[in-house]
C-alpha cells in the first residue's frame, strides 16, 4: 500500500529527534486520532532554517511525511518553508493512499506551527531588547 519512497523514509527517517538550540517548535495533531507531530527548527540571523528535527507518534505515513517535510525545508528561508504544501510532500513521496492524505496535511501544519513559534519568539526577544 505504500510506495518505496514512503517505506524508505519510514525505515530511515531523516532529521529524526530534537535538535540542539532550536528557536522554533510546533506540535500538531492529537493522540485521539493517532497522529502527533512535533517539529523543531533552528533559524539563523539571515532567516534561513539551518537545522530541523522531528518527532512523530503515528503510522508509517505520518513518520514518512514528517521526515520528507524536514528534508524539504532544511536550508530554506522561513518564508519558503511556509510555502510548503501537503500536496508537494505527497508528490515527493510518490503518492500516499487516500486515507493517509491527512498525514501530509499534518506535516504542513507542523512546519507552519514551528515557523509561527519562531516568529513569536523573535517578536518577544525584540520587545525585551527594546525595553532594555
Amino acid at each position, binding site marked *: 500500500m*505504500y510506495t518505496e519512497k514512503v*517505506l524508505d523514509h*519510514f*525505515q530511515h*527517517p531523516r532529521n*529524526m*529527534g530534537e535538535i540542539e538550540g532550536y528557536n522554533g517548535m510546533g*506540535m500538531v495533531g492529537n*493522540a*485521539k*486520532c*493517532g*497522529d*502527533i*507531530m*512535533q517539529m523543531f527548527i533552528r533559524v539563523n540571523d539571515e532567516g534561513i532554517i539551518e537545522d530541523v528535527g522531528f*518527532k*512523530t*507518534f*503515528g*503510522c*508509517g*505515513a*505520518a*513518520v514518512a511525511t514528517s521526515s520528507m517535510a524536514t528534508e524539504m525545508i532544511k536550508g530554506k528561508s522561513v518564508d519558503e518553508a511556509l510555502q510548503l504544501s501537503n500536496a508537494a510532500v505527497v508528490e515527493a513521496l510518490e503518492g500516499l493512499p487516500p*486515507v*493517509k492524505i491527512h498525514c501530509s496535511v499534518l506535516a504542513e501544519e507542523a512546519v507552519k506551527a514551528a515557523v509561527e513559534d519562531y516568529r513569536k519568539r523573535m517578536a518577544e526577544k525584540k520587545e525585551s531588547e527594546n525595553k532594555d
Partner: protein
Amino acid sequence: MKRVYLDNAATTKLIPEVLEAMMPYMTEIYGNPSSPHYFGQQSGMAVDKARQQVADAIGAEAGEIIFTSGGSEADNTAIRGIAERYAKKGKHIITTAVEHHAVLHTCQYLEKHGYEVTYLPVDEYGLVTVDQVREAIRPDTILVTIMFANNEVGTIMPIPEIGALCREKGIFFHTDAVQAVGHVRIDVKEMNIDMLSMSAHKFHGPKGIGALYVRKGIIVPPLIYGGAQERNRRAGTENVPGIVGMGRAIELACENLDEKAAKMMLLRDKLIREIPARIPEVKLNGHPTKRLPNNVNYSIKYIEGESILLMLDLNGIAASSGSACTSGSLDPSHVLLAMGLTHEVAHGSVRMTLCDETTEEDIDYVLEVLPKVAERLRKMSPLYHG
C-alpha cells in the same frame, strides 16, 4: 529472511491433508449434488459426510448444519432470520459492545427497521456477565447474540451460563464462534446454544466456506433464495470442494485439540510473560486466563500500532493491530475502547495469534525483535520521555 506468521486470527494456512481431501472434488468429482446421476450423487455423498464431520465437532446433528459462504453470512442469517421470523413475539435483541462487525452492523441494520438492540458493556477484560444478560432481558426479547471468544483480545465469554439462562427464559441464543471452533471444546447441547456461526479458514480450512448450526425446531428463513439446497435454508449450488475441506479441517482441528491448545498456551504465556519483562510500560489486553489458547494482545504505550506492524513486517513478522490506521477509520478498535482503553493506548495495540505450527524459536525471534522495534519507535515519539 526469517518469516513468522502470527496472524492466525485473521486467517490460517490451508493444511496439505485438507487440500488433498478437496482436490478430487475440483477435478474428477465435479457433479452438482442436486443432480440424480452418478457425478452428482458422488458430490452429494461428500457433502453429507462433511456435514456429519462438522456436526460431530460441536455435538450437533448433521441436519442442524447449514453451509454458508463463511462466518459473516452465518451471523447475518441467524440474526436477520430470527428477527424476521419471530418479529411478532418481540423486537428486542441483546448483544455486546465487542462483537465482530458481522454481528454489530447486522444489529445496526435491524435498528433502522424498527428493532431495539441492547449493547451490553464489557469490563476491562472484555467480559460480560450472565447477570448483565439477565437484567437486560425484557418480555419482548427474542434473541441474545454473544460471541464465544473475542477476535481481537481472545477473551472467552461465559457461554454455558448465558446459554442456560436463555434456555430458562425461552429466548433464542446465538453465538459467533468463528474464533473458538477448532480451538476450544464446544458442545452445543451441553452449552444450550441454539445457533452457532463458524468459518473454515480460521481452523486451517479453505476460505469462502462456513456454517451455521441451527438447533432442530428453530426456523431460520433463508438470506438467499433460489433453490432447495441446504433443505431450503440456503439457496445456491453447494461449494463442494470447500465443504469437503471444511469437514476434513474441523475433524483434524478437533483431533488432539487439548494437546495442541496446551502447546500453544505454553508459547502464548511465554510471550505474555516475557514482553513486559523486556519492554517497559506495556499493557496486556484481554483476560489473563479466560482467553483463547493462541491470542496475545499488548498495547505498547507511546507508539502507534501501524508503525509497529510495518516495522515487524520489515523483520519478517506478521501481526495485527487495533489502531485506527489499520481499520481504515479515524477511531481505533471498538473492542479496546469498550474495554476502557484510552484512544492513545488503543492505537498502540499489537495482536499476535499463534497456530499449532508456531515454534518456540518463532516466539524467541519475536522477543528479540519486538523490544528493538518498541525502542526505535519510542525514540521517535513526542509522547515518550523515557
